């Protein structure tokens, strides 16, 4: 009678354990501090170069000489040390790890808070800081406190223009920004098994916005089929047989399109109550909503029309971009007047490629709307891709399907 976290970490909730990690990754942002801390350790070699990844996604291509110098140093190191390295334009670290690398049952650490995205594969995947990561580089392992778990039951199916993102914002709002601090979330029930892997990654991505260590889905036939497309044959995980410290239930038929208003991810309103809020920018992408399913949904709404507000689209990876080019949805997005930027984090953290100005309002499909995050004095509303598409066409917040 154990939760998935207890099963993977091999100890009951509340215990402290030391465990070797199966995958450890950093990006160009956190990798710099990790390298500095690792050098201070003077440990010699990286313990497991074959399990260590450096993936450039945060400010790519470099936006200044300072950034370029920092990236040059990290790139040179990663390649010299024989680590897995992916350069500018390959995509967002969590997405790349989710394209056939992260596997069910693994322990995965990333120097980024949204590492929890990979819980979608039935892995225990959690974010760590740079110094923790440096010690993982040196030793191949780290300590964990096995978390208690909140069970989140989904039943039924999403309908209309409602997406996993609406579901995710809804559970974050129910739990609150610290409702699951130090704990894990498990997403279960037939409403979860109906979701695609792209949607499950969206669901798990927002787990950290409740303070959770990670969010997990059990690996099932959908997981196995997805990973098989990358040549990985995996077993499914036995469904849950545990009692949870706390349980939440959601009927997916009751979920409606929602928006998180600035500056809190847990403060949501139905889109219908915000219709008409003027927008200066729409941003579609990120580790939350930059996958093929998202771009496809976006294209299906803007196809043959023109956006009325500047709209930035960032595919989550090169594979997503290539698929979008091959199937033609990229052309639909471009023809609608959107600006497509290289696969990566884009303007999500306010560093480049779509920073907003004072008094400007951005509707974003990302996961954080903290004060000043995308630019000093700007405001961020968070929504699904469908809501972003309908709003881009309207030039103001609009309900998806409202013109049908």
């Amino acid at each position, binding site marked *: 009678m154990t939760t998935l976290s207890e099963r993977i970490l091999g100890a009951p909730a509340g215990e402290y354990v030391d465990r070797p990690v199966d995958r450890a990754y950093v990006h160009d942002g956190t990798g710099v501090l990790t390298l*500095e801390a690792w050098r201070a350790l003077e440990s010699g070699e990286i313990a497991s170069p074959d399990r260590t990844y450096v993936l450039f996604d945060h400010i790519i291509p470099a936006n*200044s000489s300072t950034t370029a110098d920092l990236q040059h140093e990290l790139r040179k190191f990663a390649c010299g040390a024989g680590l897995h390295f992916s350069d500018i334009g390959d995509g967002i670290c969590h997405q790349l790890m989710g394209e056939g690398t992260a596997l069910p049952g693994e322990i995965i650490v990333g120097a980024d*808070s949204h590492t929890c995205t990979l819980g979608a594969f039935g892995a225990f995947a959690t974010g760590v800081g740079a110094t923790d990561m440096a010690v993982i580089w040196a030793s191949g392992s780290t300590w964990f406190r096995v978390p208690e778990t909140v069970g989140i039951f989904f039943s039924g199916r999403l309908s209309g223009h409602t997406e996993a993102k609406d579901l995710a914002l809804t559970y974050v709002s129910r739990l609150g920004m*610290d409702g699951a601090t130090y704990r894990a979330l498990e997403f279960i029930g037939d409403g979860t098994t109906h979701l695609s892997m792209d949607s499950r990654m969206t669901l798990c991505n927002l787990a950290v916005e409740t303070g959770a260590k990670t969010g997990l889905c059990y690996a099932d036939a959908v997981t196995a089929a997805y990973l098989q497309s990358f040549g990985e044959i995996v077993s499914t995980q036995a469904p849950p047989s545990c009692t949870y410290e706390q349980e939440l239930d959601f009927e997916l038929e009751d979920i409606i399109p929602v928006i998180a208003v600035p500056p809190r991810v847990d403060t949501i309103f139905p889109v219908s109550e915000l219709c008409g809020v003027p927008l200066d920018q729409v941003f579609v992408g990120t580790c939350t909503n930059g996958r093929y399913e998202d771009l496809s949904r976006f294209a299906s709404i803007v196809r043959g029309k023109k956006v009325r507000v500047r709209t930035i689209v960032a595919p989550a990876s090169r594979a997503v971009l290539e698929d979008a080019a091959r199937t033609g949805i990229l052309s639909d997005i471009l023809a609608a007047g959107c600006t497509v930027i290289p696969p990566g984090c884009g303007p999500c953290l306010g560093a480049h490629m779509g920073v907003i100005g004072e008094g400007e309002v951005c509707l974003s499909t990302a996961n954080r709307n*903290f004060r000043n*995050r995308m630019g000093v004095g700007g405001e961020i509303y968070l929504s699904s891709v469908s809501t972003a598409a309908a709003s881009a066409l309207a030039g103001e917040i609009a309900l998806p399907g409202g013109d049908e």
Partner: protein
Amino acid sequence: MRIEGNAVCLPPDIDTDLIIAGRYLRTKDRSIWATHVFEDLDPSLEARLRGSVIIAGKNFGCGSSREQAAVALKEAGVVCIIAPSFARIFFRNAINRGLPLAQADLSCRDGEKVVVDFSAGTVTAGDLSREIPPLSPRMLEILAEGGLVEHWRKRR
């Protein structure tokens, strides 16, 4: 371990973007992080941080994994942070950087003298006193040695 400082009061849910904004991350120069700490919350705060104990509301340090947040606070002279709860990545980062954290729900008056006694398991602010849950022996060792890098170097 016993720490003293003057209280600086902060609200709940202080996120890491507010501690140090993303636009200041691309550097290895810690003094830049210390200079711009809390800039988007209240630019006047930085000048009051040397020798301070921050007493904050719940969920301090939520958001990103950026370790620069813990480094910035330490470099700016914060000697301890007290809050009813901390975001977990920030919690580990702070300990790893040798910045002590105490879990307690404490009403706060700016400038008041605060004493945190990890050995006795208490925090005292003015005439108010609260018990704090103990840090693990490993965390206390890491703090005593000034951070995880030093701790690890001693034991490898």
